[in-house]
Every structure is written in structure tokens, then in C-alpha cells.
């Protein structure tokens, strides 16, 4: 069978110097946005490497994206079962190692990162209890992480949001600490779509290599296939940020 281009091979006119950077995209059973994340990596100029949840070795990748979807159907709790995948232990170790592997968790990926305790807090059902798909404005609160360096501090970006269990919660102490340490990476602007505490859309670990968020930057990387307003490509910065960092480029 011919590989469908749905898996993404859009012609990319990006800087070839970024080609050498290899970004792993993890697929769990039930992952949905892996092709989209891989496409985003390619559109940003990097090389996407498919990773399988059952792999016991982390291939030679420079960064990892844990994409969105309903891994294991979101059964039990979103991300709860995936967190125990063999590859996750490798990712957890690598993220905590001195090498500080850059890890981005989008939506279900964010939920997996909180279940793995790489990021604090958790996600529960949206306060309105429904699945919600909309174009959402976010403010980039922290542009010093590996995944946000190409944005301006305070920049507002428009990316799709789509989830059922997107309400970010943590105890007050954790929330205060996140604020104090500048670890709230993204906040919802104008409309809080799910009841998240303090409008938090995404957070980072202290080192800035592990970032998780509920909205989907990988769905805002190509004009005509993302949000209708703006160019529809506000999400590309996540991927160029990490690529530039990996190849040692300045911001």
C-alpha cells in the first residue's frame, strides 16, 4: 500500500539547516494528532521521527512531541494508562536527565505528562461537561522555554482547542508556586473554555524543557487548514523554537 500523504509530506521550503534536527512524535493506541504533529515538525523545517509507545529505547531524537488524541480511549482517566507505556519511562528519564530532553505534550500529551508527574496538577472534565472545539486566543506568558523561545513575551496567538477533559486544576499552593516561578506558560485570553484554574492553558517545568498545553498549535501551521483569522499559522513557533534551539541558532 502506498503511504498516504495524510501522513504528511507537504513540500517544505524551510531552512535546510534545521533538517538535521530530529523530533520524535509518539504514537499510542488511540493517538489521533500524530500525523499532524509530524507535519508541523516538517513545516517548521525539522525531521519528524515516528516513535511507538511500546518501544523500549528512545531512538536518537533531539526532542519529543506527545501529541493529542484519546490514547486508550481516555478510559479511566485521560492519559492514565498511556503513562505506563515502556517508552514513557524512557521519556521521563531523558526529560529529567542532565541533557534535559525537550518534551512537548499537547492535549492528551499534556494529560499524559501530568499523569507521569513530569508536570504538576491534572486535567478534569470541562466545567460545561461537553467536548468543545473552537479557535482560542492564548497569551504566551513564558517565552524562555525551549518550546516558546520564538514568541514574544505576552504575545497573543490563535490556535484550535478541542477537548472534553481540559479543565486544569492543582491545589492553591501548587498554583501559587507555578505563578511565582513563571511556570504558567500560556493563559486563555478573553474566554476560559473549560474552567481551568487561573485561566491556565499550559505550563512548563522549572527547567523549561518540558511543556504541556491543552490547545493544539500543530493545527495552526498551514494557511487554510487552521483558524480562519490571522494567517492560521500561529502555532508554528512551537516547532521552530525547539528546532532553532537544537541547531544552536539564536532566537
Amino acid at each position, binding site marked *: 500500500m502506498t503511504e498516504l500523504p495524510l501522513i504528511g509530506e507537504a513540500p517544505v521550503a524551510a531552512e535546510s539547516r534545521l533538517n538535521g534536527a530530529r523530533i520524535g512524535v509518539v504514537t499510542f493506541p488511540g493517538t489521533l494528532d500524530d500525523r499532524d504533529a509530524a507535519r508541523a515538525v516538517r513545516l517548521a523545517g525539522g525531521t519528524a521521527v515516528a516513535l511507538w509507545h511500546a518501544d523500549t529505547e528512545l531512538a536518537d531524537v533531539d526532542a519529543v512531541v506527545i501529541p493529542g488524541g484519546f490514547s486508550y480511549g481516555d478510559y479511566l482517566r485521560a492519559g492514565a494508562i498511556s503513562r505506563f507505556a515502556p517508552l514513557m519511562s524512557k521519556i521521563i528519564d531523558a526529560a529529567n536527565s542532565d541533557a534535559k530532553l525537550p518534551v512537548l505534550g499537547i492535549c492528551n500529551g499534556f494529560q499524559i505528562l501530568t499523569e507521569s508527574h513530569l508536570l504538576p496538577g491534572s486535567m478534569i472534565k470541562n466545567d460545561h461537561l461537553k467536548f468543545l472545539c*473552537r479557535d482560542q486566543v492564548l497569551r504566551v506568558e513564558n517565552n524562555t522555554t525551549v518550546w516558546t523561545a520564538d514568541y514574544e513575551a505576552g504575545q497573543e496567538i490563535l490556535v484550535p482547542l478541542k477537548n*472534553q477533559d481540559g479543565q486544569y486544576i492543582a491545589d492553591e499552593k501548587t498554583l501559587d508556586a507555578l505563578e511565582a516561578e513563571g511556570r504558567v506558560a500560556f493563559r486563555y485570553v478573553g474566554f476560559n473554555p473549560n474552567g481551568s484554574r487561573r485561566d491556565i492553558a499550559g505550563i512548563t517545568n522549572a527547567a523549561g524543557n518540558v511543556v504541556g498545553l491543552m490547545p493544539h498549535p500543530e493545527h495552526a501551521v498551514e494557511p*487554510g487548514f487552521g483558524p480562519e483569522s490571522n494567517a492560521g499559522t500561529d502555532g508554528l513557533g512551537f516547532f521552530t523554537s525547539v528546532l532553532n534551539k537544537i541547531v544552536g541558532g539564536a532566537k
Partner: protein
Amino acid sequence: MTTETNKKFNIDTVENAANTPDTELPWAELGLKENEFDEIVKVLGRRPTGAELAMYSVMWSEHCSYKSSKNHLRQFGQKVTEEMKKDMLVGIGENAGVTNLGDGWAVTFKIESHNSPSFVEPYQGAATGIGGIVRDIISMGARPVAVMDPLRFGEIDHPDTARVMHGAVAGIGGYGNSLGLPNIGGEMVFDAVYQGNPLVNALAVGVMRHEDIRLANASGKGNKVVLFGARTGGDGIGGASVLASESFDDTKPSKRPAVQVGDPFAEKVLIECCLELFKGSLVEGIQDLGAAGISCATSELASNGDGGMQVELTDVLLRDPTLTPGEILMSESQERMMAVVTPENVEAFEAVMDKWAVEYAWLGEVTDTGRLIITWDGEVIVDVDPRTVAHDGPVYDRPYARPSWQDALQADAFTGSVQDAGRPSAPSELAAAVTELVASPNMCDKSWITKQYDRYVGGNTAMAFPDDAGVVRVDEKTGLGVALATDANGRYTYLDPYNGAQLALAEAYRNVATSGAVPMAVSDCLNFGSPEDPDVMWQLAESIRGLSDACMELGVPVTGGNVSLYNQTGTTPIHPSPVVAVLGKLDDVARRTPSGWKEDGQAIYLLGTTAAELDGSEWAKLRGHLGGLPPKVDLAAERQLGEILINASRDGMVDAAHDLSEGGLAAALVESSLRHGVGARIALEELLERDGVDLFTALFSESQARAIVSVPRSEEVRFKDMCTARGFAHLRIGVVDAASGSLEINGVETMSLDALREAHEGTLPKYFG
């Protein structure tokens, strides 16, 4: 295990059946008619075994055998020109039709109903409806790429409507979103006729390379037959508890679920797993399991193949160990597939199953006996010619006649009726009427529904709700893509089934052309009442005749579909509701035309002419009237309009286009303005003069073959020349006015977009939270 299982049932073997011809069988309880049972006995030359009876009863049901509609459906295959066949790679008869897109690409799509399960348990009923149609698409060898969901519920303020609405929409979202399939469109109609019979139709579309097309047939003696996916439970056999007569002891049979619960995660895994099988060319034939489960899969695979099949039923993996052989054959458990695999590929097949942690069981093999033999622990319980099960079911020429009330209904025109009293004419009345129209349940904004659906997943959605058609990219290198729309108007079809069905096609065709795509193929879901009612049967016959004639005239073949009958409460049927889906092709989805205007100063043109056609309209519905004749069908005009819209899109002559359908010009103007919050100034004097209608009629008439477009100044001359050259009526009716924040129509009090938006968007939240 097998010996123990064996003890539980009094296995009715073929041998036993031959020796006990007089055993009473529960054929009536299983839904068979006496003549049908007699036919089975004749075909077999003996009484059927319990297992055979189970198979025939489900396969000869209306749902699986199309016994009432088959004679009429033939027209879809007959009224086809060579031209229409050109791009049809697989036609009616397979799980779904396949259309050639060029560049080695093919597309398959199909629409199906899951109506009555969705009334009983809306969430699961609708969810498993999505699941079922998606498996049809996978079984063709395609990767599913999008879904759509035409819905029809009872009146918006009926106490039961919210239950169905919340459940069905959440179920479609819950299942479809979990599969990673963008939802790109659908319909939402509220009408009291659907109160006890909501219509939940589901469409799926998939794409593949030509060489990857798979068919449902079992060929090659010695090839292995495998069942994989979910385990088999008692789903869908709740009504057939009479099969307990197969049971040895007298204790009550264990309970059989009345409804099925879907497992979207299992289906998502099944999709990926099947695609991996296709990629490795590991299956010779494949069939999804839907209605009639293993009965259907084995008999269809065998009868479409070149020989026979032998299957051991105790090897089926069960969720419920108390199931009897007949129940296993009838079970409709979801998320299962059956495939035929060569012995050399068995190992590779198992490796794919193991990778995805999908359970499978090798059940038997393909033979050259021409018989379908099913054994239970080695003893033969089914020995049939598979064709007699799958294809040679009963066919009825049910009596039909034009209903006695049809003439009176058609004579009862809206104009001049009691309900037409006080027709709005003053500027303020007209503004209030437009506002009332766009806030009405059927014309209001549907985003309460669509925001529960993922439109982005896959990264190939170029257009979705609320535009006229959903557009998905197929090839990232060239931008090749497809556009899809589904439509039906039960009110029109009730007034005139022949023309109503044509109008459904015309609207879907128009929606696709409006997006810039070239219409190529049709799939339809015929939702009707009981075929045993001659009135209903007439509606069905007329609709099929009308639809097939129109397909021929528009040059778009029907490639597949589904018939859903008995949609009625007591003796009251629903309105005849043929839901028509049209698929079109865009060489480059970047050229698609959206429905909302954006650029200040662009000229707004109305294409087509307007007559006084208010019968069956949304306005008449608002006033509680249904009678008269639906709008006139003019397929030649539809075709011309389509060509104009397609050329305009290809050559960049229009920036936005929106077809006129329910709610007429008034609805279209409001929708195009609200799309991006950009207003317009409209003057219809010239139109009133040319077409000889009044302002109210110009706004609310539902004359067909019309669209509005917004044309950049630089393109106006070229655009007008094109319309003139084609002799198609076109009129500049206004200009986009970005600054005004309002919709101004001469003779109508100015309407602010804010107020219109509040009216348009407030309705569904008001009723459903």
C-alpha cells in the same frame, strides 16, 4: 472448552434437521413470514437448523435484504450513461462505492441510518452509527478521512427532544472525535413528524490509491478466514430471545442487551490495524461486521468469492460464554472485521494483530465446494449455498398508489391560506420577519452542535460548517481534494415525492458546486415509513424514480446508500426523507469558495431567477402551513449554475459564494454577512422588476438554482461576461459594506449584525443549554 460448551446446548445439527422434519421452529418470532419460511425449506430441501434459521432470518430482514425496495433501487444501476460510469471504480453492491479522483487516487463514501437505536439510547445509538459507517469505508481498503451527520429530530420545544439532541450529538462527537475523523458537515432539522422517529444518518468518506481497493470476497481454496477486533457478545439480539429454544435447560436464557455500547478506542485501533494489513497486502478479502454480524460476513464473503467456506463457530472469541450458536451468528457486536488471508501471510497477519493488541480467531477456510458450512465443535449446523442467504432473499413488489389525500394537499397553497394572513410588507415587518426566520429552529446557527465536533484533526480540513460543503484535502503535494454535502427536505418530498427527491439532490449538488468542486458521485439514505402502507410505498417508489432520473440528468451516479423503512409511530409515518449526499472533486482545495464575504466594496450578485414559491418553505413552516407544490425543479439550470460557480472558483472570479435553499435569499444574505461579521447594502428593485415578484417573495421564496456570490471589482467584467455567455440570469444586487456592521436591504428596516447574530445564535443554546 468446546466439550463443556457443547453440553450447554441442544445442538440442532443438519443431520438432526433432516431426521426431524416436523420440529416446530420460531420463524414468526424471528420476523419471517410464512412464505419466507417455506422458501427456506424449499431452498434447503429440508427444514433449517436453528442456526440456519437464525442466519436466514437476519439476512432476509428488510434491513439486510432490501426486499421492499430492491425492485425500485435497480433504477440507480439502470439509469446510468457511459459518461457516468467513466470514473466509477466500484459501484452499488459493495460496502461502499469507489470513485476515481485521478493521479491514482480514489475516494469512497457512503451514508447510512441508525435511526431507531438512536431513539432508544441516543448516545450509544448515534455513536455506533458512526462506528458502523466508518467500518464500511475501511473495508474498501481506504483510510477514513471525515464524517458527516444529517440529523432530524422532533419539535425543538417537545420535552423529549432535548434527550435525543444531547445524547445523539454527544454520541456522534464522542465516537467520531475519538477516531480522529473530522466532522465536516451535516444537517439539523426539527419537525414534529420525527418526534418518535428521529433520523440519525451518518456519512463517512475515505481515500485510497487505486491499487489498494479491497473487495468483500473470499477466494482461493485453502485461504484462511479470520475474525478480529472486539469479542462477540449478545448485542443486537435482544429481540430474538426466542433463540433460547436452542438452549438445553429450561432456565431462562441469560439477558441479552437491548442496546449496543460502542468502543471508539477499539475502532480507532481497528482502523490503524487494517491500514497496516492493507499496506502489507496481507488480506485477500475483507468485510466489516455490521447488521447480521457473522451471518452476513460469512455468507457475503463466500457468495462474492469463487467457492465456499468452512467455519468452526466454537472458535469465535466470546464476551458472553452463554451465547448459543444461533445467537453468535446473529450478534451485532461492534468493532469487528472478518478477513481472508493466504496461509503464507498468516504469520505476518498475526504480527500486526499483536502489535496493535487486537484479538483474533482463525475460524476456518475458503473451500471450493460452493457451500457455506458452519460447524459447532465439528458437527455441521449450517450447510447452505451462501448465495441463497446473502443475495437470493425474498423480493416484494409491494402495492403502492398515489395517496387519496395527495391532491387535496397539493391544492392547499400557502399564498392566500389562513396562515398567510397579514404577510409582512412594511419595512419594520420585513426586518422582523427576517430576524424571526434566521432564529427559527431550522434556520438558526448550528454551532451548538458543531462545536462539539473536532473539525481540525488530520490537518486536511479545508472547509467545514457552516460553509455549504465540507472540503478535505486528499493529496498534500497537489492540493487535490473532495467536497461533500448532504441534504433532504422532508416537507418538499411530502408535497411531491418525485420532485422532492430531485430537490434534495439538486441542493446537495448545488452546495458542492458552490464550494467550487465538480460534483462526481451520489450516496443516499432513504428514510421512509412502512413499505406495507401503499401510501408510503408510493412515496418511496416516486422518490427513487425522481432521484434516479435526476442523477442521470445531472450526470452523477449513485454509488451506494442505505434504506431505512418503518420510521413511523403507530400508523403515522415520518415525512419521506431521502437524504442525498453528493461528493465533488477540487483539483486544489486552496481554490475552494467559502460562504462568507470579507472584502469591503465587493459586488454581490444573485445568480438565477426568483418565482413566487413559498409552498413547503421555511416561512410557511414558521406560520404552521404545509401544502401546495414544492419549488420547481430545473436540473438544466442547476447544471449551468454549477458550471458557473466551478469556473468562477477555478479562475478566481469570486471570493465567496453561498447557495440559496431553505429560507431563500433572506437566509443566505444573513448567513453570508454573519460568517465574518461583515455587512452589506442590498437593493432588490431590479430583481422585483425583472422577476415580477414583491419584496417579501424575493426574500422568502425558495426558488431553486440560485446562489449569491461576492465578486472583486477587478473581476466583475469577466464574471458578468461569463454569465452572459452562458445565458444565465445574473444581477448585481448590492455591495459588501465592511464598516456598516449591518445588513441594509432597500425597503427593509436596517438590521444590525449584532441583533441578527443574537437571534441566529441564541436559539439552540436557549433550548439545550
